[in-house]
């Protein structure tokens, strides 16, 4: 128990979390501190490339154990299941209409890769190893949630509305499946897998050594964006919606914890599976919702996911999930 608090405390005063807090505070105080869009995107590309490559190289090094397929199946199942729970919960308690509830639900079934990255970083500091292929699980979890949420949104509309001009659905599915971040994460994973530890050795002073520092800068930017989102968007979040933003990661996380333990992941692996299930997308899914469900209000789902759930997971969630994983696996 003491250890848990120690890890939670260490997490809270890590440069990563403090950088996020700095950005969040600066935005709330209306400082003009800001990152150029191009710089934020470049940092995100770096993080995706590095985390994907490292995962692949680690699989190449340690070999594939049989749980890989199970983990991927479990990830896909969680991504499809969580939106159903989220949708039910939102409809029951939040007063959001069907379309908005479905749009929010999609975010929670999908994942936040930055939360995942921050968790790997916290695990590394705590000396907990994890399965490299969880990066592939993360990539797999991005999409199913979107499909389920669209089905939820449209189930209520009786039948599909007539085709809109310029609105090919085929284009939409390709866009979702070939979404840049999935492609980069998966591609870098495959490159890491093919080139293995030798490839990693060639570029590790780029993708390993400065990784945590880059993550700090990126979290600083996330803090700025999240804080600005809260400043301008908080009025769109009714109290039950805010409560959902804290409760849902715990529910999703519990499912991830169970799934990870069942399929026999390592303690670190269970912690990451829990984190993935608990995290909510705020990059890929919002864009997909603007295309597929334009009637839903982005001020609700973006503010909730980035302004409430992301900070919760980053500060309280990650140490909690790690502790729970250690407990459950006896690790």
């Amino acid at each position, binding site marked *: 128990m003491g250890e848990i608090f120690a890890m939670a405390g260490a997490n809270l005063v890590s440069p990563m979390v403090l950088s996020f807090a700095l950005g969040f505070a600066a935005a709330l105080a209306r400082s003009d501190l*800001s*990152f*150029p*869009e191009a710089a*934020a*995107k470049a940092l*995100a590309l770096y993080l995706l490339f590095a985390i994907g490559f490292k995962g692949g190289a680690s699989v190449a090094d340690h070999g594939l154990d049989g749980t890989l397929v199970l983990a991927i199946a479990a990830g896909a199942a969680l991504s499809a299941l969580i939106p159903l729970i989220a949708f039910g919960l939102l409809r029951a308690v939040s007063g959001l209409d069907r379309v908005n509830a479905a749009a929010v639900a999609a975010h929670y079934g999908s994942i936040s890769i930055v939360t995942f990255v921050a968790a790997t970083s916290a695990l590394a500091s705590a000396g907990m190893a994890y399965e490299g292929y969880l990066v592939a699980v993360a990539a797999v979890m991005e999409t199913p949630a979107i499909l389920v949420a669209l089905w939820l949104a449209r189930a209520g509309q009786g039948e599909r509305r007539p085709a*809109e*001009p*310029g*609105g*090919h659905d085929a*284009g939409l599915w390709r*866009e979702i499946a070939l979404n840049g971040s999935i492609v980069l994460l998966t591609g870098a994973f495959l490159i890491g897998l093919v080139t293995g530890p030798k490839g990693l050795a060639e570029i590790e002073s780029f993708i390993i050594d400065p990784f945590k520092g880059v993550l700090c800068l990126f979290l600083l*930017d996330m803090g*700025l*964006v999240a804080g*600005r989102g809260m400043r*301008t968007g908080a009025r769109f979040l009714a109290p039950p919606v805010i409560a959902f933003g804290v409760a849902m990661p715990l529910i999703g996380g519990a499912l991830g914890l169970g799934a990870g333990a069942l399929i026999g992941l390592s303690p670190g692996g269970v912690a990451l599976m829990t984190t993935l299930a608990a995290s909510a997308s*705020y*990059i*890929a899914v*919002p*864009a*997909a*919702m*603007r*295309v597929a469900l*334009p*009637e839903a209000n*982005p*001020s609700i789902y*973006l503010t909730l996911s980035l302004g409430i759930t992301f900070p919760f997971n980053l500060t309280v969630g990650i140490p909690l999930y790690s502790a729970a994983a250690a407990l459950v696996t006896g690790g």
Partner: protein
Amino acid sequence: MELHRKKRVEVIVEAPALARILRFLDERGVKGYTILPAIAGRGASGRVWSREGQVGEAGRMVAVVAIMDEARLAPLFDDLFRVVSRQIGIVSVSDCDVVRGEAF
């Protein structure tokens, strides 16, 4: 040089809907368009946006400018407006003059 009167259509729309708008313009045989970035804005909803530090596309706006003949615009305008009005965005039309009338 002789000038020809054309219409300048300006669509300010959220970035995730851009592909849809362009697909529409392509299908309807619009001869050309140019996309300009926007950095921030505010709408009647009071919603403020800014692309500073943003990684995602949601909550970012772009401006599509297409110069075209009124005869080409008339049959597609209503549908264009319908596509844009489902998204966050506005459409406006103004007059302008160009040289090669047949190219628009």
